[in-house]
């Protein structure tokens, strides 16, 4: 029945809808693809998920071509302009700053840290009113911070804010992306790197803090067709997408009241778009791996409701000297080997066979721990994985759209 799937933020959209109306019971299990579907159908019929008329936040927060009027659209390749493009693109509907890192302490125990800042426009740009309230905005922000510990315990926190009074936002130079006290920002003015991430999460069973610095970045790597990443066959269903595929990460994680010094590698994605949906897409599996031979590999596949893999699935390989080469659907294969079932009965493939014949890569990608599920207003799996085989490596896997039968 699910006819749409969105990557990352698209998944988060119903969550925004939920947060925006503040229905606390929306924080129940199974608001993942079900929520997507409800919001998607709302987009078409102009009714809310409960069928009441006039409650069309679903239509506002995207889907197909409906309600895109007035937004900028990612339809053609464009020159990227840095540092301006590190900042927000408010005329596009959605945008995110996405950072994952796999880290290790001196004693060899390994950790994972995820930080994501999402921007969502609730309405297309209009004429600004000089007498308007300082609170007047059409931008809503959401942030996720998650830590995976060596004992397999995974914890994630989330926050929301409107784009007003400096509660949340992104500044291109000197770079800063923040939601309240969760911040990712340039350590030195006039230099994008090193970046410092600070976040403190209290409202979880085991409160934690992270303070990490990222430097010696490889990138920016333009994804897809010179930064235009198509998500379906339809023109305009695409995003502008670039990445820093490898950063040296160093810092500390405070977990259970104990500070642990860690270091490792990080990966940052930047993406903005207005419409990327296609009916029939149900979810995706996204792999970002740092290979031990110095190459970085990203592949993603979009799953369709008939069980097939969408032709828009793609990837990239980046060599040690920063040369990148896009990969198409035909260049790689992904095969789920074993699944882990969450408490709702949804089965998440936590063991995969990844083959990229042209790169000589073939092996099993195994989750370091099966339960790295972000049980937030929207449920998705985001966690550390390692690849074995001739070219081993470690990195992050993101899975969406797996629901209970």
């Amino acid at each position, binding site marked *: 029945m699910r006819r749409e799937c969105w990557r990352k933020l698209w998944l988060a959209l119903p969550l925004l*809808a*939920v*947060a*925006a*109306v*503040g*229905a*606390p019971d*929306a924080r129940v299990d199974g608001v993942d693809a079900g929520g997507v579907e*409800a*919001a998607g159908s*709302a987009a078409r019929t102009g009714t*809310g*998920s*409960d069928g*009441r*008329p*006039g*409650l*069309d*936040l*679903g239509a*506002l*927060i995207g889907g197909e071509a409906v309600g895109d009027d007035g937004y900028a659209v990612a339809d053609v390749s464009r020159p990227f302009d840095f540092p301006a493009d590190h900042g927000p693109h408010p005329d596009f509907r959605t945008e995110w700053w996405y950072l994952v890192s796999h880290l290790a302490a001196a004693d060899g125990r390994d950790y994972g840290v995820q930080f994501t800042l999402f921007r969502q426009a*609730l*309405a297309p740009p209009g004429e600004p*009113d000089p*007498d*308007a*309230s*300082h*609170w*007047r*905005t*059409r931008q*809503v922000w959401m942030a996720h911070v998650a830590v995976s510990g060596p004992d397999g315990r995974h914890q994630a926190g989330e926050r*929301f*804010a*409107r784009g*007003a*009074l*400096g*509660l949340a936002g992104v500044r291109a130079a000197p770079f800063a992306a923040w939601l*309240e*006290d969760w911040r990712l920002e340039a350590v030195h003015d006039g230099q994008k790197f090193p970046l410092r991430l600070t976040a*403190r999460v*209290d*409202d979880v069973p085991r409160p934690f803090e992270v303070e990490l610095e990222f430097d010696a970045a490889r990138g920016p790597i333009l994804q897809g067709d010179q930064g235009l990443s198509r998500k379906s066959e339809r023109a305009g269903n695409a995003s502008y997408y670039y990445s820093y595929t490898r950063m040296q990460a160093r810092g500390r994680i405070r977990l259970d009241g104990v500070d642990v010094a860690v270091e490792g590698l990080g990966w940052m994605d930047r993406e903005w778009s207005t419409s990327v949906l296609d009916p029939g897409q149900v979810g995706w599996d996204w792999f970002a791996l740092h290979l031990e031979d110095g190459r970085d590999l990203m592949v993603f596949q979009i799953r369709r409701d008939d069980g097939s893999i969408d032709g828009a699935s793609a990837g990239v390989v980046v060599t040690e000297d920063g040369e990148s080469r896009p990969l198409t659907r035909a260049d790689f294969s992904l095969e789920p080997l074993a699944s882990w079932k969450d408490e709702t009965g949804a089965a998440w493939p936590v063991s995969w066979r990844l083959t990229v014949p042209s790169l000589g890569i073939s092996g099993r990608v195994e989750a370091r721990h099966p339960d790295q599920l972000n049980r937030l207003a929207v449920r998705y799996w985001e966690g550390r994985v390692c690849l074995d085989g001739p070219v081993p490596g470690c990195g992050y896997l993101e899975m969406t759209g797996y629901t209970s039968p």
Partner: protein
Amino acid sequence: MSLLLRSHLRHLWRDRWQTLLAVFGIAIGVAVVLAVDLANAASREAMRVATQQLDGTATHAITGAGERLADSHYPQLRLRWRQGDPRFADVRAMAPVVTAEVRLARTPQGPAWPVQLLGVDPIADAGMRAPVPGPAGGGAGRLISEAGTALLDVVSLRQLGVGPDEEATLWVRSAAGLRPIRVIASFDPGDRALGQGLMITDIATAQELLDRVGWLSRIDLQRERVTSPPGVAAVLERLFPGLVIPPAETEGVDLGGGLRLTSLAEQAADTRALAASFQLNLAALGLLALLVGLFLVHGALTHAVMRRARAFGRLRALGVQAAEIYRMVLAEAVVMGVLGVLAGLLLGRWLASGLLLLVAGTLENLYGQVAVVALAPDPVPMAKAATVGIVATLLAALPAALRASRVPPNGRAVAVKRGGGRRRALLILVLLVTGAVCLHPRLGYVGGLLAVGALLLVAAALTPAWVRFCLRGLLRWLTLAPLHVRLLLRDSERGLLRSGVAAAALVIAMATALGMGLMVESFRSSVDRWLDARLAAPLHLQFAGERRALPDGVAEVLPQAVRGHVFRVSWSDRIDRQPVRVSHVSVSGVVPDDLGLAMVAGSVADHGVAISEPLARRLEVGVGSTLALPVPGGRRELAVTGVFREYGAGPGLILVPEAAGVPVLPGSAALELHGPRGDLDTIIATLTAAAPEGTRVRHQADLLAQARAVFDRTFRVTSVLQAIAGAVAAFGLFAALTALGLERRAQYGVLRTLGVGRLTPVVQNLGEALLLATAAVLLAMPLGIGVAIILIEVVNVRAFGWSLDWQFPPWLFLQALLVSLLAGLLAAALPAWSLYRATPAALMTEVRGEA
């Protein structure tokens, strides 16, 4: 069936009218107690629901000077909270609020419906007030992104004639003027529908709608509750009107920069305390009705016991124990009590719905609560009224039961113990001492009400002796009067054991009525004089929106229009947890001394502030003390130079002259115009042309009429309860005279057979009633003055902080006399009529039957 029980039932049946009267007396007393409690509970519930609807799960709030804070504080406070500032320990959510009471209308000129406008950030507010907005999956996105959109509760929509699925443009009337608003969705307030209407908008829309860009009303916090739910406290508060149990948490936390963090429970307790004194006064009137009812029970049982003295003597002779007779009479009382309570509960429910409207209206006038209230079946007041009814009945029956048990075997009459006078004197002494102790200042207005109660009981205890004194005096004075007059006097004296109780009830009712009447009249004249002075200016201008200064256009034309003016900017705040209204005053030209305020002490002077009398009492400050006035960024110590009268029960007033140099906060702005140059119509035309849109020009006469109407509405409920107590008393007199009439039938039978005309018993009966009523009212008059003294000098001052000018309108005393006489005549009419119609033979038959 035992002999005892059969005898018992037979007597109850024979005295069925007396029994019925007693039952009715209890029923009325219980009904009034219950009705007052239910009405109080309902209005309290309405206040609570209205608060809860607005606060949601918020437990604390951050406020600034003038009950507002710059919205730039919000992100800073949020950061402090997120970074672990210990003052925000246990805080789970923080949300900004912009709120105001506004009126909604379908068309710009259409009838308006009051709603609370609640501007929230739907994102920060998630989880705090979430259940209220209701519409899942939408609305909020548009609320944020579309200016001028709102969600409205379905009850308000219905009131405005808008369908629940309709998107409608409505008109908001607020201090900022008339603005359109688009209602994009509705929500069902569910069981919260008791409260007022609620309109939810995005915080940006609320600021724009109210002209409050840059300002928040407060920041709500949701803190993990450490205290237990206030279950016990809530029940206690329902049991004892006037009682307000403050939450364990007391003082607010100073966050610096003039910001304070206070618990909402604490603020709610303050609001409850304001209404509580009014509710206690009502409850006291309710108890008074019960007290009067108890005199009926007492009278009826005494009557029954006396009539059955012979039967008790025979029973004792047959071997029945005194204790059994004692229990039997008490059991009789319990039967009456139960019947009375049951009837009273039913009656009380019915009475409550009527009373509720009056109570709600008064609370609205006094405290500005828009109280759309409904009665709820509440077991606590029901149980309380029932218990009070039964226990009081038993207490009232105790003397009769004792008397009955003391009838010796084969005794023929109930012994009237000697030494009763001494005991009564002792009782009076104890009551007087108790009353005096109750007047101690530390006992507050509750002590004052108790003292009134003690004084009334003293009067009740004195009544029989007083009436006897009057009758004997008359007898001595009228030595040459005709025989039947002397007979009347002597008969009346003999009947006192029975009628004395009824007379006491009448004294209580009349004294209360007179005391309350004096208080209300004094109040009315004080308020009148205060209003006249306060509204001395012939013209008043109210500006729309919030402002800090006189609009330039108006300032330009003023010198040509008038000789003097007073411009006020007023805003709300709190000092020592007391809600206050700060008025910044700038004066120009010729204006009345002290701005026309009636000063209690000191004067309005440039170097300090003048404050209203109730506030001075609440804060315990006077001329010469200092007051810490909240100003942006902190507090300013100012000398109190004067205290002025104020009869509003709302927040205390603080008058800050311009010269005191206190920064003006944006607030509602008003202009008083003194000494018009030329005719008013021309001046109004000039000013209207110069004033900004939405300015209202009002004549002195309109404002006076409006203020007086509010005053009258406020006292309507009091007079209704007063009338009920009076009616119960008249009823008591009726019962007592009926009993006396029955008892004297034999005597009249003898007189009639001796040839005395049938009119004589009628005249006797009516004469006795008039004598009793006159004696009662003569005692009630000084007593009423005593009640008024306590009410005016103690209760009003302590409960509301109002001081009043005494008024003694003669018509009030005349009215008391006439009402008493009328009550006496009405009460005597039926027994007299029955005597008139009875033949001597019938009267004699009853004598034999009795024997």
